[in-house]
């Protein structure tokens, strides 16, 4: 059982999918419960995984290994470490919640939940696959259901949004594929990520392609692939559109997990395989983070559509993560071997991506709740809802305050850690991006005021209070946010040995000489 835990986690949704396929299409209730069952068991398994995980071990655990296409050295390798475990848990949790968020889906229910479960498998697979080829396959598996989920069950502009999302991501994955092949042929024709992590730094150093360092080329190829998912500034425009058009549950998964894949990929692959490249790129990374923070914040401030505001806030929040990631180079001897800052920054970045997962999921669910009732999301179209829906107001206030980085919520800790970590190396950038904290507060509070404060809009005097199903989807996330905000140690202990390993690797790298 234990040795197959990861496979079970990955393929369980597919089992659920088969189950759904057997249920006649008009029995929507059974279909929904089947999806809930599959994701529920998955969540339980994820928790079992967590309880059996040994946080002191920095390496891969629960490794499964089987030959797949031996002639190309492609294998089926799964494993988790401190970096991916939180993401696995988050994925299981959000997928489970996502099923209940989509409870109200009323057309083509069967197809929806089938695709939903397929998406679940894809995401889970990306986080646990330790073979580059497998990773890529899962990466693509994820793309397809997303396309249909947005394109069929989305809002009025759904087709445009879906195709845009699809093309953007496809563009990224093509570049990524080139990068993967480059690595494959330069580093001993293997796709095994663990082997690559061992060998790649050495085998890549000094390799030149067309007068450019191979590290730089591969770094940039992979980075763009991941940056589109994050999304990093110039590649971000699919996000607001996709978020706005996607059904609520899909927005939740999109913001909660899919964006994290980008950061995860950069940390796992760019950082793991090319520590020298980190030295070359960290400055740019921090700068992109700054742009994300400020740009996202400003755009969010200008929005009148609540969902778009939350979408831009995601861009803003992921910027903090980028800044924190860039802090890793503080650990290098050139920067005074300041491992303290590097640990703070990297742990902050990882923590931020987890927290954004819970917080933005909460925000999107809450936007969905109000949209279901009022059938629009125009911020200025509400007003005074606080007196009509006190519980909803309370939860939303909690989510908004969590989003604007109020202490007591987990988002604050991670943002602060990102900044503290990056400060010694990138003083100017960090100081400039603290403006983001202000923008953050400004757009959330302003939106909050416009929706909930003031006199109650007569149109909404019969708006129903948030119901227990919706509460059930939000409360777990709120609890996690608060608990980790008060006492983050459980999370940080989980990730720290893996992250310290990454820091060690990066610290041992050096800036690339020449082009």
């Amino acid at each position: 059982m234990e040795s197959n835990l990861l496979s079970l986690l990955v393929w369980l949704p597919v089992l659920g999918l088969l189950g759904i396929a057997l249920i006649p299409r008009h029995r929507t209730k059974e279909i929904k419960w089947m999806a809930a069952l599959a994701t529920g068991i998955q969540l339980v398994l994820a928790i079992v995984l967590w309880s059996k995980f040994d946080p002191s071990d920095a390496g891969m655990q629960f490794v499964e290994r089987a030959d797949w296409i031996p002639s190309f050295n492609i294998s089926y390798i799964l494993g988790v470490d401190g970096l991916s475990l939180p993401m696995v848990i988050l994925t299981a949790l959000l997928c489970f919640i996502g099923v209940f968020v989509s409870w109200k889906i009323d057309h083509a229910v069967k197809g929806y939940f089938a695709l939903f479960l397929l998406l679940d498998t894809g995401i889970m697979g990306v986080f646990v696959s330790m073979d580059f080829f497998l990773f890529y396959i899962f990466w693509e598996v994820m793309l397809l259901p997303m396309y249909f989920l947005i394109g069929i069950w989305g809002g009025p502009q759904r087709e445009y949004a879906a195709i845009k999302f699809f093309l953007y991501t496809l563009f990224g994955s093509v570049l990524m594929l080139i990068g993967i092949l480059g690595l494959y042929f330069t580093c001993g024709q293997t796709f095994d990520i663990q082997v690559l992590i061992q060998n790649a730094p050495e085998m890549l150093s000094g390799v030149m392609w067309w007068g450019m360092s191979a590290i730089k080329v591969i770094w940039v190829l992979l980075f763009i692939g991941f940056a589109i998912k994050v999304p990093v500034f110039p590649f971000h425009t699919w996000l607001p559109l996709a978020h706005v058009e996607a059904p609520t549950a899909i927005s939740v998964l999109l913001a909660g997990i899919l964006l994290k894949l980008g950061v995860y990929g950069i940390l796992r692959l760019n950082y793991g395989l090319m520590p020298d490249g980190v030295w070359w790129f960290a400055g740019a990374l921090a700068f992109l983070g700054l742009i994300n923070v400020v740009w996202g914040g400003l755009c969010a401030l200008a929005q009148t559509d609540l969902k778009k505001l939350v979408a831009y806030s995601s861009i803003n929040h992921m910027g903090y993560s980028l800044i924190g990631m860039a802090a890793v180079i503080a650990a290098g001897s050139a920067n005074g071997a300041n491992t303290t800052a590097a640990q703070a920054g990297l742990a902050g970045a990882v923590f931020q991506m987890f927290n954004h997962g819970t917080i933005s999921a909460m925000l999107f669910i809450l936007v969905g709740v109000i949209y279901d009732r009022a059938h629009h999301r125009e911020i200025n179209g509400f007003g005074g809802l606080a007196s009509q829906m006190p519980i909803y107001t309370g939860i939303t206030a909690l989510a908004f305050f969590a989003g604007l980085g109020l202490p007591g919520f987990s988002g604050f800790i991670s943002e602060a850690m990102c900044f503290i970590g990056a400060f010694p190396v990138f003083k100017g950038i960090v100081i400039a991006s603290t403006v983001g904290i202000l923008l953050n507060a400004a757009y959330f509070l302003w939106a909050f005021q416009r929706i909930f404060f003031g006199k109650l809009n007569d149109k909404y005097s019969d708006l129903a209070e948030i119901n227990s199903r919706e509460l059930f989807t939000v409360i777990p996330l709120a609890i996690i946010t608060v608990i980790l905000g008060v006492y983050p140690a459980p999370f940080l202990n989980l990730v720290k040995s893996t992250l310290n390993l990454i820091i060690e690797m990066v610290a041992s790298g050096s800036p690339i000489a020449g082009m």
Partner: protein
Amino acid sequence: MDNIYINSSLAILFLPLLAFTIQIFIGKRLPRQGDWVSISAILFTLLLAGYMFISMLAQYDPNFRYESSFTWMDLGDFKIRLGFLVDNITIIMLLVVALISSCTHIFSIKYLDGDIRYSRYYAYLGLFTFSMNGIVLANNLVSMYIFWELVGVSSYLLIGHWFEKESAANAAKKAFLTNRVGDIGFFIGIMTVFTAVGSFAFTDIFEGVALGSIEGATLTFAGICLFAGAMGKSSQFPLHIWLPDAMEGPTPVSALMHAATMVAAGVYLSVRLFPLMTPDALTFIAYIGGFTAFFAATIALTQNDIKKVLAYSTVSQLGYMILAVGTGVYTAAFFHLLTHAMFKANLFYGSGSVIHSMHHALHKKHDHDTDPQDMRNMGGFKEKMPITFWSMTISTLAIAGVPFFSGFLSKDAILGGTLSFAQNHPQHFLLPIFGFGAAAMTAFYMFRMIFMTFYGPSKMPEIYDDIHESPREMTGPLVLLGTLSIFVFYTLPYFNPFSTHGWFTDLIVAKDSFVPGNISAHEIAEHAHHAHMPAMILSLSVAGIGILLAGLMYLKKILSADTWAKNSGPLYKLSLNKFYFDENYDRFLYQPLMKFADKVAYFDWELYDKYFINGFGKVTSWLSNISGKFDYEGIDQGLVDGVGRSAKNVGHSLRNIQTGRIQNYILYVLAGAILMIIIQAV
């Protein structure tokens, strides 16, 4: 012994939080909306704080200090330890917070009677008390910052208590955002200090400063940044704009947060961090404080809203405290914080009492348009509300700096410090001018308020009959705090009304700065002592002039206020309109920012995405058109004999290969196989 401190501190910290939790979740369903839960929690806190205070007095040790911390997070090298620091300053602050908070809780029973969010209100009070105690107990910058922001949010929630009013919602947002500006500075300061020292704990930081791990310009920068937090919270120029607006909140809240405790947090922070401030940073602080004291006083001169007068007075008094920190007499700052908390809270309760009765009187007349806070509608309340009148008068005497009252002692200490500072550094002659000027104005506008409210004929005779003294729940705190404005409580066991010498000066002793080369605490005390006499005489005379002028203008009406206003020309208008700060911030910061944000969003959505990104799509489809044509005309037609017919576009050209004829496919397969063989052979 230590354990008792730690246990009572923990209890003091978490009891209000418990009350908050209970109120938030089940408050509404409890009898009396659960106010008794909050009140008993806070009274218990008061008991504990009182106990700590008494044991402090029993110990009578100026160097008493107890610290305890635990590891909050540990990433190997990066560690954060949070903990408590209990010393005399902490204990006094805890008592102040518990006392004023208890008063507010009791005062609010009647003041908010029948409010629709009564339990919510008490919940937020609990949250505030919790976070304020957190600030007071913090022994490190991290927990300080955490509670700092939590205080901000409880202030947001309480100012916005009546959120149906647009102005209240705006004020709440403004308060939070303005505070955030300061907090950003605070945060940058924390990062600077941490980067240099590697720890957040005060003790480690001071040690680092003493050892020189952070010094010179960096330390000045860090000091000023940290002080920026205090500027935001203590509403110092130019971040003072939120405090007057914050008066939109219920008056007891104004008394608790926006007069006595929360705004004093900035001063508290400055006092705590005084040892790491460099002379340059201190000079900056002194000027900010001095200017704020003066500037806010000039605005207070002309305000007609009773709470606005008090609000600007608060800003001005906070400026005093900051000035004291800047000039090195930081114990005087803390002393003023203590006395100010009592008399200013009292003044707010008094104004609350007046507003409450005005409100009820107006309500009886079904008059909802008249502003119950406007002093031009009051007058002659002295007979109707004697308790309120007397307690307010005592507090006004205290704030004006009249001997035998607490304010005299603390203000005098500050002014003495400022004067001696200017004597040693003649180039900073402006600071005492600010200080004494503000003192004169304070005396003037406070008595103006008293005269306009309580003396003379009533300006709205139609409601005069309905003005009544407030109920006991409201007068109780008034009497208590009014009594505490008398000097003896601060000079015990001595009874000299002209000397601060007493338990406070014995227990709170200034310590040397940790910044190498700074002037020592002993020297500062020495200088201040010398300046004591002239400062006292000067302050007494300016206060006397202020009171006299107020009396002539508003009591005896010998001087006409209108004529004076006219004569002062634009100055009067500037003061009345608060120097147009809000308007200018709106015009030069807020609006441009919003416009910029709109532009950015427009660019992002309408231009960048629509043209640039979608342009890629267009280019790609154009290229694929070309390649499709090439494919069709070049390859397809040549290879497939006679199959291709007229095809309209690229999509169709591809379709031509898809004949649906299996035999064609086999042929292609075969051709492909041959091709592969050829490739293999070559």
